[in-house]
């Protein structure tokens, strides 16, 4: 489904922030992406949501080599990826409803469908009564739920979340992870970038661990016997 082969990334003429990264994400898998600050997590995430092009190596997403895709096709590809940013990145001039509706507008869905889907999802994340409020009038937790709703509204095949529990207390963090697991059970491939060891210990999923731009994969013991969803290649 998603395959990174010998991928490297550098900014300008600086050193490589990602070196020879190889992995494959199978459909419906769930992974944590972990590593110390500056290890390249954000850079790897940006490659996954096609926000950057690798300086070397090949990335294949949903059966397509991204190098061979036109700008138009890349935009279609990005619509298949949902992203939850640590700082939410909501558009503050748009209401909660319009923020969540944005991915559907980008894919030219009808107003009728947008109205019904967005209303239903906002009810599901318990923000139905706040749908016409601007993000800045809502709490951090409510903003985060809007960001998650926006990321999942178009039923992405891959959902990326960057430190989603970073600003939350443990209880809400666990609840949020429960929500991600629920989405994963519905078929969405998940990659969660996190520092939170407690979360990684509590939820048994494979870990992509970045250290100085090098990627290793760790599989928790209780899922060792499952079919591997992440395969190390050329490591």
């Amino acid at each position, binding site marked *: 489904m998603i395959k990174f082969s010998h991928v490297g990334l550098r900014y300008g003429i600086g050193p490589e922030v990602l070196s020879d990264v190889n992995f494959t994400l199978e459909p419906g898998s769930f992974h944590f992406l972990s590593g110390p600050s500056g290890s390249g997590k954000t850079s790897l995430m940006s490659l996954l949501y096609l*926000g950057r092009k690798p300086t070397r190596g090949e990335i294949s997403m949903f059966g397509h080599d991204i190098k061979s895709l036109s700008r138009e096709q890349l*935009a279609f*590809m990005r619509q298949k990826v949902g992203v939850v940013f640590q700082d939410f990145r909501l*558009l503050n*001039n748009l209401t909660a409803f319009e923020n969540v509706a944005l*991915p559907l507008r*980008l*894919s030219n869905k009808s107003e009728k469908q947008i109205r019904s889907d967005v209303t239903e999802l906002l009810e599901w994340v318990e923000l139905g009564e706040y749908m016409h409020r601007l993000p800045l009038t809502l709490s951090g937790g409510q903003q985060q739920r809007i960001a998650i709703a926006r990321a999942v509204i178009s039923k992405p095949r891959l959902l990326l979340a960057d430190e989603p529990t970073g600003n939350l207390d443990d209880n809400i963090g666990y609840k949020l992870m429960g929500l991600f697991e629920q989405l994963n059970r519905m078929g969405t491939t998940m990659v969660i970038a996190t520092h939170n060891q407690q979360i990684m210990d509590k939820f048994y999923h494979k870990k992509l661990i970045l250290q100085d731009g090098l990627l290793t994969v760790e599989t928790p013991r209780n899922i060792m016997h499952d079919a591997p969803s992440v395969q190390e290649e050329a490591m």
Partner: protein
Amino acid sequence: MSLFQRLTPKSYILPLHKRSGSIQFFTIIALMTAMLVIIGAVQFSLLSTVHNWKSLIEHQASIEIPALDQNGRDYSDEEINMMTQRIIALLENIDYTSDVHTESHEQVAQLIGPWLGENNKILDNMRLPVLVNFNINTDDNDFIAQLTKRINKIAPRARLQTHKNWLNKFLKIVNGVHGLGLLIIAVTVTATLFVISSTVRTRMAIYKKELALIHIMGAHDRFILRQFLIYLGYLVIPAAFIGAIAAFIMMSIISALFLSADTAFIPSFGVNGGQFFKLLFIPLLICIMSISIGAYTVIREMKRMP
């Protein structure tokens, strides 16, 4: 919900029109349009003036037969009359000249009057020259020199004036002003295009994060382009038409206020219906140019995104 939000499609998601700079941009476009309309009207006036003068003077010639001879002695009426008739006969027998006629005493007095100031009583005691006007259908200098010689044989102090030199000098000045007008139009249009291009680039820099976000979410280039086209349309279309209307109002006021004022310092905007119609195209052209250069700038800047 603001009027703008009601008028714009739901796909206009970035508040490009909101932050500071939009009023200044609107004003600059309005002023540039007003300036172009006024310069356009002046250009049309100049063209009309040139056309009028050329059709009045070109191929026209006149012979002035002074009332005094070389020694300062008054010619008698008979002498003057005889010289005039001989010159008329000469001109009527030449192929290149036609429509020969003399100006009446009153018409000559009217021509000379302004040169004598307000004391027109002098004219009553003054012997006036005779003015013979005719059409001449050649620019050949040899022919004109020959004709002058033959006329001077009849009336030694008679002067042949073809207006050619004067008309050439006049056309040179008018064409110079016309060229200057075109240069100002070119500079104004270029400045307008630069303003639009830099405004779009500034907006893209201000909304860099938002643009990056919708790009990551899968916005096509045309979706992002549409944001800027709506923004430019929202500002440029009213600005251009308000600028044009302001220019027409200003020209009408100037024309109305100074219509009766007999001074050369006030410009005259004598545009006809067809020219007025052409001036109406200036705001339309400004809109088309603005939106085109805006679209070009956005597309060029977006190519920097992966």
